[in-house]
C-alpha cells in the first residue's frame, strides 16, 4: 500500500489575530495506513497542522490560506466539514471540550455524531454497540460521560469519532491529561486501529510510545516541518531535538554520555530493548 491519503502542497496559513505565526508546509505526503507521530515544542504549530487536515482550518478559523490540502480526492478548502468529518476524525487533549453534552449517557453521546449524519435508528444502535465493545466501554454505556474518569472520557471522545468510521484519525495530545493506566489504554487502542488499516496522526510528547508505534515521525517547529524520518533517526538525534527545545529519552542520553567519555561511536539507541542489546554486545563485561 503506497497510496497517498493526505497531501499538502505549497500550503500556507496564518490566523488573522496572530501575525507572528504562520504554518508553512511546502510539500508533504502521508501514506494510507501509516502511523505518523508529530512532535514539537508548545506553539510549534502542531495543533494548526491537525486543524488543516481536519478542515477546521480554513473553515472554522479566521485567517488566510494559500496552497492546498487534499484528503484523497477531496480538497479541504472546497469541501465542507460535514463531508470531511466522515473522512477525518479529530480527538483533542481535553475530552470534555469535545463532549456534545447532548447525550445523557455514554451510548447517547457516542450516537450524537451519527444523528447528524442521518443514519436510521437501527443502524445507529448497531454501530454504537460495536464501537462500545471495541473500545471497552460496555460497563459504562449507561453512565453519564461526565461521571467518568479522564481516561474513560477520552475513550468516549474517541468512540464518538470512530463511530463515524473515518479513515484518518488525528489525535492531538490525547493522553496529555491522563494517568499511566489510561495512557496505556489509549495507545493500545490506536495500535489496534492501525492494524485495521486506519491512517493515524498522533501528536504527543511521549517519545517512548511514539518510538514503539510510529512508522514515521514529523518534527514541527516555528510552523515548519523541520524533519521527517524514521523514529530511530529522529529520536537518536539529540542535537536536532535539543535545537528544537525537545528532550531526548534517557536511554538515548546514556549513549550520549558514553560518547562524551569516548566510549561510544555508533548511533544512539532509542529503546530499552535496543539499549540492552547494544550495551551487551559492545561491553561484554556488562552483565
Amino acid at each position, binding site marked *: 500500500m503506497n497510496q497517498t491519503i493526505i497531501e499538502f502542497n505549497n500550503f500556507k496559513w496564518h490566523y488573522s489575530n496572530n501575525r507572528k505565526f504562520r504554518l508553512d508546509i511546502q510539500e508533504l505526503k502521508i501514506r494510507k495506513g501509516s502511523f505518523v507521530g508529530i512532535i514539537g515544542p508548545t506553539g510549534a504549530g502542531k495543533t494548526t497542522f491537525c486543524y488543516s487536515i481536519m478542515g477546521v482550518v480554513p473553515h472554522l478559523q479566521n485567517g488566510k490560506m494559500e496552497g492546498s490540502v487534499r484528503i484523497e480526492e477531496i480538497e479541504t478548502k472546497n469541501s465542507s466539514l460535514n463531508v470531511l468529518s466522515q473522512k477525518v476524525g479529530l480527538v483533542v487533549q481535553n475530552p470534555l471540550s469535545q463532549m456534545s453534552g447532548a447525550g445523557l449517557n455514554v451510548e447517547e453521546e457516542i450516537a450524537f455524531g451519527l444523528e447528524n449524519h442521518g443514519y436510521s435508528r437501527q443502524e445507529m444502535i448497531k454501530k454504537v454497540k460495536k464501537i462500545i465493545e471495541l473500545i471497552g466501554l460496555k460497563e459504562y454505556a449507561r453512565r453519564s460521560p461526565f461521571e467518568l474518569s479522564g481516561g474513560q472520557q477520552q475513550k468516549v471522545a474517541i468512540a464518538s469519532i470512530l463511530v463515524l468510521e473515518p479513515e484518518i484519525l488525528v489525535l492531538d495530545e490525547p493522553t496529555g491529561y491522563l494517568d499511566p493506566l489510561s495512557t496505556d489504554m489509549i495507545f493500545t487502542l490506536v495500535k489496534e486501529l492501525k492494524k485495521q488499516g486506519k491512517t493515524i496522526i498522533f501528536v504527543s510528547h511521549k517519545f517512548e510510545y511514539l518510538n514503539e508505534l510510529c512508522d514515521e515521525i514529523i518534527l514541527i517547529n516555528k510552523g515548519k516541518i523541520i524533519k521527517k524520518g524514521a523514529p530511530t533517526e529522529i529520536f537518536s538525534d539529540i542535537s536536532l531535538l535539543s535545537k528544537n527545545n525537545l*528532550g531526548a529519552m534517557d536511554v538515548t542520553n546514556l549513549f550520549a554520555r558514553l560518547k562524551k567519555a569516548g566510549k561510544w561511536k555508533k548511533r544512539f539507541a532509542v529503546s530499552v530493548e535496543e539499549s540492552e542489546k547494544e*550495551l551487551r554486545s559492545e561491553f561484554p563485561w556488562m552483565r
Partner: protein
Amino acid sequence: MDEIIKIEKLTFVYQSANVKALDNVSFSVRKGEVVGIIGQNGSGKTTLVKHINGLLKPTRGNVFVNGVNTKSKEIDELSKTVGYVFQNPDDQIFSNSIIDEVSFGPKNLGFGKRRIKELVEEALKTTGLEYVKKNHPYDLPYNKRKLIAIASILSMNTEVVIFDEPTTGQDYLNRRIVIKIIEELKKKGKTILVISHDMDFIAETCNRAIVLKEGKILLDDTTDKIFMKKQILKSTRLKPPQITRLAQRFKRIYDGTLSVEGFFNQMYK
C-alpha cells in the same frame, strides 16, 4: 521532632456518593522532605493532599500540620503554612492580571507592602513570568497558566508546598522550569509534596514516594526502593522510569538507578 505533617489513621468518605476515598492512611513527613504521591486516578491522591491544606476534614483519624490538628484550624490559618497548586490552573486563577493574581496570596496573608513586592517579584522571576506580568492570565496558553498558578503559591512563601500534577500538558522546556522551581524550594528547606503520573519527574525530584491504591498506602519508601518493587508497581500499572527499567536488565547496575549519570558511574566505577 521535625515532623511538619503527621497523618494518623485517616479515613475519608465522600458522603454524597458514599465512597471511601481514603482508608486508614498513616504517615508523617519531616521538614525539608520532597515526597512524591503516586497512584492511578481515583486512588485518593488529591483527596489526601486536600486534608493537608484543610480543604477536607477527616471522617475518622487526624491530620496534624506543625503539631496542630487541622480540625481546629480554619483554612485561612493553614494557608500560611501550606500552599496548594491545583492541577487545573483555571480552578485557581481569578484575577485580571498576572501580577494581581500572584500578589493576592501574600496580601491576604497580611504581609507588609515591601515584603509583598519582594515575594511577588521573586515568584515571577522563578517562573519566568516577569515579562508578561501585566497581561491577563488568559492571554497565556494553558501550560503557561500552570506556571501562573505555581507563582501565586510561591509568593505566599509557605513552609509546605503541594503540587498536584505540575507537569501534565507541559512540554520539555516548561517541565525543566517546574523541576528548577522544586530544586530551588528544596534549597530553601521547604517541605514539598508532589502528586504526579510522570515517573521520570518523580525520580528526578523526590527523595521519597508514597504509592496509593484504592485509598490505601501500598508503598512508602525512598524513590529508588519504590521503583525496585516491580511486581507491586505492576499491580497499580505504574512503570519505573526508562533508565531504571534499563538498569534492571543488568546485574552490574543497581535496580534502583534513577539517572543517566548514576547509570554511567556504575559502568565505570
